[in-house]
């Protein structure tokens, strides 16, 4: 059933090393989940997108030429969110931030997700990531009217416990005050946009 496993003597470890995070988050060589450069057997699909669940190997072949896409592997490494969240970014000389994990929920979606705000450079990246994670489109943001053109609006709970519209405050302020995200749907979403 499975193809033979062949191990290269000089495994290109760097190339096969799988990392988390979205494109554009670092300068290093980016790898996809299924590197076709090694001769490994076809890997089980870890992407959470059902549409890309594969029996075929088409995805592997594409990897060499396709733009690298890092899919976030849910639940890996197996560390409880409680632990991830409690590692605060250090005031000391740490170049790497330990991660600002916030929960993301979307009205109607059965699963919560957790994302690391620290890996995004700004709102456009974050919103794009959310769109891709939950498979929906966010409308056009305007300060006056919030998000127009879609029935969804991204909101967040800040440190005071208030629900705010994503995008209203400068990015840095948002990063430090956001406790969790919620993608609202429908009339509740529209209510937030106007006349607040």
């Amino acid at each position, binding site marked *: 059933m499975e193809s033979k496993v062949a191990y290269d003597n000089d495994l290109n470890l760097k190339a096969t090393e799988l990392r988390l995070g979205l494109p554009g988050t670092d300068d290093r060589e980016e790898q996809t989940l299924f590197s076709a450069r090694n001769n490994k057997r076809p890997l089980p699909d870890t992407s959470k997108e*059902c549409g890309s669940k594969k029996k075929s190997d088409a995805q592997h072949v594409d990897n060499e030429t396709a733009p690298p896409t890092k899919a976030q592997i849910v639940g890996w490494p197996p560390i409880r969110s409680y632990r991830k969240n409690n590692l605060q970014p250090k005031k000391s000389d740490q170049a790497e931030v330990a991660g600002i994990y916030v929960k993301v929920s979307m009205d109607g979606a059965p699963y919560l997700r957790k994302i690391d705000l620290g890996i995004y450079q700004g709102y456009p990246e974050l919103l794009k990531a959310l769109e891709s994670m939950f498979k929906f489109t966010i409308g056009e943001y305007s300060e006056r009217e919030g998000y127009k053109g879609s029935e969804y609006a991204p909101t967040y709970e800040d440190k005071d416990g208030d629900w705010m519209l994503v995008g209203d405050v400068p990015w840095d302020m948002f990063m430090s005050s956001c406790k969790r995200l919620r993608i609202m749907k429908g009339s509740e979403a529209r209510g937030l946009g106007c006349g607040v």
Partner: protein
Amino acid sequence: MRKDRTGISQDDDRSPPADLRGAESSNKTRNCCGVGSVSGSTGPISMEFQAPCPDQVLENVLENVLQFLSSRRDRNAASLVCKSWWRVEALTRSDLYIGNCYSVSPRRAMSRFSRVQSVSIKGRPRFADFNLMPIDWGAHFTPWVTAMASAYPWLEKVYLKRMSVTDDDLALLAESFPSFKELVIVCCDGFSTSGLAIVASDCRQLKVLDLIESEVTDDDVDWIACFPESGATCLESLIFDCVECSINFDALESLVVRSPSLKKLRLNCNVSIGQLCRLIVRAPQLTHLGTGSYSSPDDAVPGEHASDLQSALSACKSLVCLSGFKEMLPDYLPAIYPVCANLTSLNFSYANIHSDQIISVIFHCHNLQVLWVLDSIRDEGLQAVASTCKDLRELRVFPLDARGDNEGPVSDVGLQAISEGCRKLRSILYFCQHMTNAAVIAMSRNCPDLEVFRLCIIALHSPDHVTGKPMDEGFGAIVMNCKKLTRLAVSGLLTDRAFGYIGKYGKLLRTLSVAFAGDSDMGLKYVLEGCPRLQKLEIRDSPFGDAALHSGLHHYYNMRFLWMSSCRLSPKGCQEIVRALPRLVVEVIKHDVAVCPDDTVDILYMYRSLEGPRDDAPKVVTILQ
């Protein structure tokens, strides 16, 4: 007599035994047996009898003897001897342990065990902790507490793990059990500080309130102030480091003063070092201390409380366990040196400090048995542990940066050092980027007492980084040489060969975790056919399919659960399991309600149950029938 140890009757449809009236003792096998016993960890069928008791004197004697039996496994065995022993055991069991809340209904459990004082219930499977399960999957405490409210009015202790608990549940608990003494909640969610307030104010006999790694919503309720305000409390343990709420410090201090029996206190992050000092001074009898944030943002001079803290800590002659340090200010590190020599347990796994600083603490900790650290300890730090902590039994090394972009501050070097220095090691959890077979083999030889070996090589499919070979031989050595091994987690590049070793040598294995490993169905077959004691099997992202699943049919009734996510299962294959084993509940859970093609199974979660399919499952869960 029954053949298998768990007590599933081989012939379900046997009619109830004939009249048992007889003068002889109840040891006659006749047909008293043949009915399963409902117990926490086995799951056979239960039948209700109205047969008269043949020998009352013997039963009284039995009752007096059986009440001393505390191990639930012994009790399960005793209950299978005959009907009389079953009945008496049920009357004398005071601790009810439900390993899977869906394996038995509250009503059934409570009608069998009528004199229970302590209940432990576990709900979600462990992989739910890693966002792999839908949020409202289930494991509700409500039906249990509702049933217990009338069945166990003298209930004293409740232990919950991975359950959904509401404030109403807590209110019902506080109201229904006047003798209530101990509440331990681990990895749960669904309740808030309002619920805590009710427990604090209404449970007047409360000795233990332990909230561990749970999600507690902050309702802005000052629950600490809700403890009875005057007179001494019975409190022995108050653990709330996971509750992210502001703390009324005066109320807390007053509570500590009024709690002369307080031995365990674990604070949350909102207690400063100055406040910590004041609390410790009030409670020098503490044995377990969680320091909260261990920082002092308002210091005029950094470390200005250090000597106060040090003398306060020195007064705690009984302190054996230290934890917290969530925003640790290194200036305050030396304050703990005086207590290090007595420490048997140290949890530094939230302390993001330099390796040198950790080492400076470790050098004082000669008696340490349990150590939890971050991988920022580095291999050098682990070498210090190896040379100092000769009594170490349990080590956990967590990754600071879960994203795994870095080169890995701990490696095979650290593992090798630990194996050479800490020969009494029983349990290890080790996160790293890469590993070598040699280091794992060394550990298997140097640490023969290992019962728990969990190695998480974060880089997926990572081979031995020196030889380039799979990690098969390393894990093989572990199962072969560690004769007491009951729990194993594998990772890295693994072929079916590794699973062959596990099946061949892992005879005592009860829990196995597999991720991104194996080549083919043979891998899973080896395990299912070779490991007779396997109770909990959790597998993700591995190429095991229907044929492998079927190879375990002989064993699934003996297990608590099987979890397989992102493997190669089909709905048809899972359906055949249901057909073959009617007492299994087979849940197929989708990642997404919307788009998924129906020929794949995202998550399979199956478990034995006396109750059949549950009725509280969300839409993404399909229970096959």
